[in-house]
Structure formats: structure tokens, C-alpha cells
């Protein structure tokens, strides 16, 4: 039996066709699994957007991470950038006087200072001294004598 003849004999045997009823069933079930067109398009658009700008998005994310870390570090108790404690210290004597005055008015007493003398005027903050131009009360009219 020659190989060529045998192969040809086999080749000439026609294969069965798929049953015709299967077409409708297979396609119907497959169609039921298809994604909605709009969602597919929007997914494709998002993929296109992120695929093209992936480096930019990555850099933006890194920047946000740096900002968050920096904010966390600067907001720590050891950080000296907060101005709230300074304001609180400035306002403290006035707040204490107000409190004492309120207490005395309730008790119908005249407010007293530490030595027991009645207050006539509210205490002025230490920093509220003679006003000078320039920073920190440094006299602006100070004459600088240059060495000869």
C-alpha cells in the first residue's frame, strides 16, 4: 500500500458538518456575553488616555506623595513653623485678666492683681512697649558710628 494512495484515500473522506441547529444556539449564548457598546468605548478611551500619559500620571502621583510626606513632617510637634502657640502666648495675660474680671464681677469684687491691689486698667502685654519703627522694637533712629 503506497503512502501517497493511502493518504489520498483518507483525504477524500468528507468530514461531518456541524448540525445546523447549533448555529443559533451558539451565537445566541455568545451574544449574551458581549459587553455593551458604550462601556466598551469608554473603557477603550480610558485605556488610550492612561496608556499615552502613563509617565505624566506617574509623575503626578509621585509629586502628590512628596507633598503629603512634606506636609506630615512640617505639621509635626517638633516643627517650629506654626504660629498658633506664639499667638496664644501673646494673648495669655489679656485672657487671664478678662477671666479674673469676669470672676470678680460675678462675686461683686473688684479685680485684684497679684499683690492684692485692685486693677485700674488691664495689663498691657510686655511686647506692647514704646513703639519704634522697624522690627522687634529696634530703634530706627539709632545712629551707627562707623570706625574711623
Amino acid at each position, binding site marked *: 500500500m503506497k503512502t501517497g494512495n*493511502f493518504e489520498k484515500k483518507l483525504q477524500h473522506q468528507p468530514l*461531518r458538518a456541524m448540525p445546523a441547529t447549533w448555529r443559533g444556539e*451558539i451565537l445566541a*449564548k*455568545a451574544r449574551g*456575553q*458581549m459587553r455593551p457598546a458604550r462601556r*466598551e*468605548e469608554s473603557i477603550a478611551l480610558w485605556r488610550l488616555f492612561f496608556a499615552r500619559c502613563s509617565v505624566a500620571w506617574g509623575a503626578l502621583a509621585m509629586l502628590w506623595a512628596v507633598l503629603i510626606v512634606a506636609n506630615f513632617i512640617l505639621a509635626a510637634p517638633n516643627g517650629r513653623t506654626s504660629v498658633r502657640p506664639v499667638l496664644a502666648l501673646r494673648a495669655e495675660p489679656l485672657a487671664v485678666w478678662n477671666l479674673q474680671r469676669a470672676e470678680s464681677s460675678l462675686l461683686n469684687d473688684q479685680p485684684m492683681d497679684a499683690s492684692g491691689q485692685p486693677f485700674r486698667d488691664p495689663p498691657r502685654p510686655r511686647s506692647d512697649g514704646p513703639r519704634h519703627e522697624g522690627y522687634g522694637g529696634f530703634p530706627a533712629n539709632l545712629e551707627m558710628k562707623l570706625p574711623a
Partner: protein
Amino acid sequence: MRDSRELERLHDEHANSLFAFLLNLTRDENDTRDLLQEIFIKLAREPGLLRGVRNERSFLIRLAHNAAIDLMRRRGARAKYHEEFGAEPDQIFADTGDPDTAAFRGQLSKALAEIPPEQRAVVHLKLWEGLTFEKIAETLDIPPDTAASRYRYGLDKLRVLLRPLYDEIK
């Protein structure tokens, strides 16, 4: 984007070929239908699956082959039942009115069921899909030499199994 018409086109162009290939591998019509359904559901869910594919038929045959191999591994126990109780594998050839031809086709169908699936796949693609060994190798992801040797071994076994009938009807 793959729409319903595209799915129909793919079905009309390739379903018959896939059916014959899957039936030859699985030898069970119900399994063949399940696998075909699986393939078209996959095509419907992933419209981009065939994007950039040069040869649709080869790609789909590879999908079918992989699915069939997975199924045969899963149903190992059922296959043993069929062998033990002599269940007949489904006929893979078309009916004919000629009794001699019908007898030959029946015997050929049984003989194909007796050769290993990997040889059966190559024999099918060579004889009934008309692919070259290079194309078969690319489709099944095997070396061309392996495709050629599997074909040779498969054909030799078929020749031995069919010799009495072949000589008789020749």
C-alpha cells in the same frame, strides 16, 4: 469593535472546520458543542482577541486544540469508562449511501480514535485542513520536526489498523 455581525461571520467561516477538528479530538458530540460554545463566548467577551492575527483559522484551531486538551485532561476518568464499557466514539465522517464506503469510513473513524490525541491532531490538520508541517507546528506550538514525526507515526498506525479493509475495498 466586534459586533454581532462579526461574530456571525467568524462562525460561518470557521465553525464547521472547528467542529470537525474538535469532534476528531474529543470523539464526543456533547463535548464538542461545549467547546465550540466556549470558544465563541471567548470571542464575544474579548473583541480584541483576533486583532493583529494574520491567520484567523490557525488562531482559532489553536484555541480549540488547547481547550480540547484541557477537557481531555479533566475527563480522564470518563474516558476510562468509555474504554471499559466499549462505548462507541462518535462518527466523524459524513454519511454515504455506498455500503463499502460507509464501512471504510466507520473503520477509519474508529482507527483514528485509537491513535494518541497528539498524533490525531497532526493527522487531521495535514489531511483535512491541508496545512504544511510548518503551519501545523506554528498552530500547535510544536517544532516542525515533531509535527512531521507525529504525522508519520499516526499514519503508520492507521495503515496497520485499516490494512485488511483497505486491501479488500481497493
